């Protein structure tokens, strides 16, 4: 097998080099056409603006470049896959993707030069136009009026901007291959069968109003009688946060390779889960969603799973384990039966950066943050975007189901007319990504730029007004109450007797390690509890760099290995 893979990789590499060389030649020729056109238009005596008909040659070159780009990317990915033995992603896209990549690679700039030269030519030749009307008259080509031509040019550039945005969006992540995409897409698909498969599932949640929603997620292939893990994401994020870069950069895949049976959930209204139009608070997650998810997983395995919740995921797990219920009439209460049932259903609980009581909020500046808003650095100035101002936006996304982040990118990759409509939104998000809206989530020096962008685009998804209100109240009061304020969760951690490992991050601005020890760990009723502080790490750094993955495994194994008493 290694010899065969090596031979295959060499063939891929040779083909890739050949196509890369073709792309370079194509780019040079296109540059030559632009240069030649400009030289003749401005240099040859008496040349008419019809010389810009050479745009047709440029278009031809772009068509061929598109096909080449498709091949190049398919081959690059296939080469890496073959060299590494696995995994190859399924080939997607084709001609439009290739065209977008060609536009991004060279043709946007080339056509820009070309069009500027053309528009200026009619402005300055034979003498500078005296008025706009005269300029429009000069632009006229046969029956096509100058205004018509300008409109055509604007439409052309809008389409080109959409293609450029699409090219940007897929250049890093999407493996493209056209109809003539190289060395048998079939074979690459065969290689793809060696990749770690994500098996989708949908757990149904019955809500007391009678509404049913589906929590979607994915499981990695079952590996014998492995310990099952339920991975539950935090505030505004979907489950892809555990699978940030499929392959070596995926925490879920790492844990799977380390022998766990991994189940990743998208919370209500995020990822592929339904329920975007529901009202939902942390209580709903704790009372309905988590128990339903745990029941769903437990029905398919032999031993109770371990619940691993990040941030809000961990908070919801704590609220759920203490027996928080919502009654049909609406009020919340704590139920001993529910607490016992839910705790029995789990082998243990690992919370990552989860502290329901924001007792540290005043001194850490979190309260000020909630009041004042997110700090933006724009053109050297500091601006503050109040959190409440963002809420209608998040709510809008939730209502409209506009695909944000990954779904937007998937929609862009899927194609059709939707692509052109979504591309400006994507550009807006690209701009938003540059603003560093989410930088409070991680310690910047610890994480790469690509990981930061991936976090923004793949995982930031949406949330619910009630969740935000509940958080806001918790921050302002310094303790976590149920949404109707009937239950003070902070006084009931003693009800949790589940083996628990609390993980705090030293540089976490959302969960202070010292307060986690005094306000949560000390009050937990569990006899088997442990507390770990990860030094030099922010709230989400461990998702974004594989070097932190072993720490997560260590925390899980602490729960499995009958926890030592907290030191």
């Amino acid at each position, binding site marked *: 097998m290694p010899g065969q893979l090596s031979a295959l990789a060499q063939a891929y590499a040779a083909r890739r080099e050949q196509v890369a060389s073709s792309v370079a030649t194509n780019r040079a020729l296109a540059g*030559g056409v632009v240069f030649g056109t400009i030289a003749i238009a401005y240099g040859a005596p008496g040349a008419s603006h019809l010389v810009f008909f*050479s745009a*047709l*040659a440029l278009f031809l070159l772009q068509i061929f470049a598109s096909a080449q780009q498709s091949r190049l990317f398919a081959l690059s990915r296939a080469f890496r896959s073959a060299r590494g033995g696995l995994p190859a992603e399924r080939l997607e896209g084709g001609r439009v993707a290739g065209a977008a990549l060609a536009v991004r690679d060279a043709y946007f700039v080339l056509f820009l030069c070309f069009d500027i030269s053309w528009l200026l030519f009619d402005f300055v030749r034979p003498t500078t136009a005296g008025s706009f009307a005269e300029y429009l008259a000069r632009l006229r080509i046969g029956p096509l009026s100058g205004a018509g031509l300008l409109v055509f040019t604007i439409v052309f550039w809008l389409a080109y901007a959409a293609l450029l945005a699409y090219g940007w969006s897929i250049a890093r992540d999407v493996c493209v291959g056209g109809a003539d995409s*190289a060395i048998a897409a*079939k*074979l690459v698909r065969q290689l793809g069968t060696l990749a770690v498969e994500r098996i989708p599932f949908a757990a149904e949640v019955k809500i007391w109003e009678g509404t049913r929603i589906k929590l979607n997620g994915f499981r990695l292939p079952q590996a014998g009688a492995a310990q099952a893990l339920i991975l539950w994401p935090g505030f505004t994020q979907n489950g892809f946060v555990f699978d940030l870069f499929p392959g070596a950069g995926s925490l879920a895949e790492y844990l799977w390779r380390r022998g766990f049976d991994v189940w990743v959930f998208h919370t209500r209204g995020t990822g592929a889960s339904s329920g975007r139009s529901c009202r939902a608070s942390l209580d709903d997650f704790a009372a309905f969603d988590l128990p339903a998810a745990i029941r769903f997983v437990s029905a398919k395995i032999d031993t109770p799973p371990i619940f691993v919740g990040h941030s809000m995921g961990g908070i919801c797990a704590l609220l759920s384990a203490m027996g928080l219920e919502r009654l049909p009439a609406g009020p919340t209460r704590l139920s001993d039966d529910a607490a016992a049932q839910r705790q029995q259903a789990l082998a243990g609980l690992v919370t990552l950066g989860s502290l329901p009581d924001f007792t540290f909020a005043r001194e850490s500046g979190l309260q000020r943050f909630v009041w004042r808003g997110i700090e933006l650095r724009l053109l050297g100035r500091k601006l503050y975007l109040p959190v409440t101002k963002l809420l209608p936006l998040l709510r809008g996304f939730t209502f409209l189901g506009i695909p944000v982040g990954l779904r937007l990118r998937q929609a862009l990759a899927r194609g059709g007319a939707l692509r052109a409509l979504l591309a400006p939104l994507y550009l807006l998000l690209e701009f938003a990504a540059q603003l560093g809206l989410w930088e409070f989530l991680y310690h910047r020096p610890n994480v790469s730029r690509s990981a930061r962008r991936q976090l923004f685009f793949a995982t930031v998804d949406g949330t619910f007004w009630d969740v935000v209100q509940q958080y806001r109240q918790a921050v302002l009061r310094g303790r976590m109450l149920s949404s109707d304020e009937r239950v003070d969760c902070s006084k009931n951690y003693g009800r949790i007797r589940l083996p628990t490992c609390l993980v705090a991050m030293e540089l976490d601005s959302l969960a202070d390690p010292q307060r986690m020890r005094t306000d949560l760990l000390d009050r937990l009723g569990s006899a088997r509890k442990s507390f770990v502080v990860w030094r030099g790490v922010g709230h989400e750094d461990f998702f974004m760099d594989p070097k932190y993955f072993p720490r997560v495994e260590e925390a899980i194994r602490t729960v499995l290995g009958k926890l030592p008493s907290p030191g």
Partner: protein
Amino acid sequence: MAEDVVQTLYAEETRRSLSWRTAMDWTRNLSVMIVAGMAFVAFGLNGSTHYVLFFGSLAVFAQLIFEARMHRFAQASEDRLGEIEKNYFAPALDVGVSADPAWRERLAKSLLSMAPSVGFIEAIAARISKNYFVIFVALDSCWLSKLYLDPRPATSWVEFWHRVDFGFVPGWAILLFLVPFWGSFVALTVWFRLKQKYLGREVRY
């Protein structure tokens, strides 16, 4: 057949296929450059006639013939590579895939045979479908635009016909020639695409 023989054959066949591909890239690029050059001359130089575009298309047609000839040999090479990939690499990588028992025999026959597996007409159709359809669209667009627009837009159909006149051959006859020309192009393209779709022959370049 020893494993290293197949792997060596695959590597060498890949190299050979890439040489053909590079050569075909150049003929295609040359065709595009001819189109660009014709446009420069026809529209950039004062007093140039439309003949430059009309006769320029002959040069592009010559490139099509050259490319079709190369295509026949390149396709033979690609067929052998496909055979090895489907029946040697894929089953090795995935136990669920089984090799066709007759593949080695087919490969041996292909190596022994001197004749390419693709006929000349099919090769022409393949290159038209892949490259030359759009190249000729661009070329003829330039030509018709030149006829219509230069030196000033034609004011009537009659004027347009007469601009195409070539000696004693009337313009309409020349324009009529476009019908069988483009008809054959479309027919060849459709035939080739259908053949690809229903007979499963893959053209990878």
